[in-house]
């Protein structure tokens, strides 16, 4: 579903990604872990077609980036630590707007389905600026899955959420993953990543330093696996 070969990204003289190779199979949930400044967000922005690679080859859902960016964007949902929502529109209006931008058919029905999925049906007519951070993040997930994408990218989705909101977001993420979508999530939260992901990749110093599936890794040693990858 995602194929990345020898991806390099430079900002001026600074090289952030130094030859990343990365493959994700359909239905996999990959947690992309790493310290601050490792290049996780840059990598996800490139996969989302929001930033161009300096060198390397990328295919998402069979389409090449950056040449076929529009085709990739149609099959991609993105959730970042910012909600990418309009505070002066209601939850329903936000989804209506993004549904129109993605050409979603039977939009009214789809909006109801999505609001139900993220547990915000009762607040559909409320302005988003009146929502808590956790509710905004759940609606952001609703926005990302509205057009039924094959691939969803989560960039630090738990940033700024309290325990209750994080637990509710866990449930939403699990239901998104259970629908068979391919998911790539960056996170600092090893416990949550361990709970959700089927594979763990460590991005360090601009390369994928280590990778292990859930089967290869027993629950108890993700932290040591992470530390070893960073040390190596």
């Amino acid at each position, binding site marked *: *579903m995602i*194929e990345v*070969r020898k991806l390099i990204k430079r900002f001026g003289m600074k090289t952030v990604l130094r030859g990343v190779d990365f493959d994700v199979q359909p239905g996999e949930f990959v947690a992309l872990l790493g310290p601050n400044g490792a290049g996780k967000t840059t990598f996800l*922005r490139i996969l*989302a*077609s*929001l*930033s*161009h690679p300096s060198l390397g*080859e*990328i*295919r998402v*859902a*069979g*389409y*090449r980036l950056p040449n076929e960016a*529009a*085709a990739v*964007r*149609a*099959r*991609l949902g*993105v959730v*970042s630590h*910012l*909600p*990418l*929502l*309009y*505070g*002066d*529109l209601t939850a329903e*209006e936000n989804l209506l*707007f*993004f549904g*129109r*931008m*993605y*050409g*979603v*058919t039977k939009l009214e029905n*789809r909006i109801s389905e999505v609001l139900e999925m993220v547990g915000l049906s009762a607040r559909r007519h409320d*302005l988003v600026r009146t929502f808590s951070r956790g509710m905004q993040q759940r609606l952001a997930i609703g*926005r990302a899955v509205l*057009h*039924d*994408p*094959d691939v969803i990218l989560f960039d630090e989705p738990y940033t700024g959420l309290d325990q209750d909101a994080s637990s509710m977001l866990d449930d939403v993420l699990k239901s998104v993953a259970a629908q068979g979508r391919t998911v790539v999530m960056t996170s600092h939260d090893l416990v949550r990543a361990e709970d959700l992901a089927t594979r763990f990749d460590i991005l360090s110093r601009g390369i994928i330093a280590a990778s292990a599936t859930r089967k290869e890794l027993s629950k108890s040693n993700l932290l040591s696996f992470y530390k070893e990858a960073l040390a190596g």
Partner: protein
Amino acid sequence: MVTKSARLSKSVTERSTSPNLFKATLAIAWKDLTAEYRSRELFSAMLVFSLLVILIFNFALELDIKTRQSVTSGVIWVTFAFAGTLGLNRSMAVEKDRGCLDGLLLAPVDRAAIYFGKVISNLAFMLIVEIVVLPVYSFLYSINLFNPGLLAVILLGSIGYIAVGTLLASMAVQTRTRDVLLPILLFPVAIPVLIAAVKASGGFLNGDEFSMILPWINLLIVYDIIFVAIAFMVFDYVVEE
């Protein structure tokens, strides 16, 4: 080498269709107008600013009726230009501050739709302010501004100013100094449209022959077409990281 895997078409054929430029443009304009209808942040700022400017000019100049007529075109275009800049800055800042610009850029539509949608909404805000400001100006300066020719010039001038302003605001918003950068970028580029608008407006207010005003109107039309075409071609590169 990356192997070419089978292309997945499920989501695009079953759940969605490729939205065209026109529908996406209207969706963005609808979104901006609905949000502004709720908050009235941008409109209030532009309107209060415009009214203060014409009020200050009214007291500062203290002109006789004849001189007032001669400065009217300049005063109204200075007012519209400053108020327009205020609106342009805010309109793009709203997108950037909440990360919504990324949300727009992630949509599988021609990015020119973002430009045209923003032009429509920014133009609507500017025209609404102008509709309110003109009667107030007429009252304060005792000058009749309800001349069809003048109104057409205001429309053409506003289109040109917003066309280039929206493009430059999209560039300026990516920088940390966007508030000061936009006027610095915009005013020099907008000089032709402002000069043509002031001259054509002055011509209509002074009752000049249409043949004398026509070259300025032609300049406005050419400017509008050129800048809309340039923006259509380069907007994609302007918003790219």
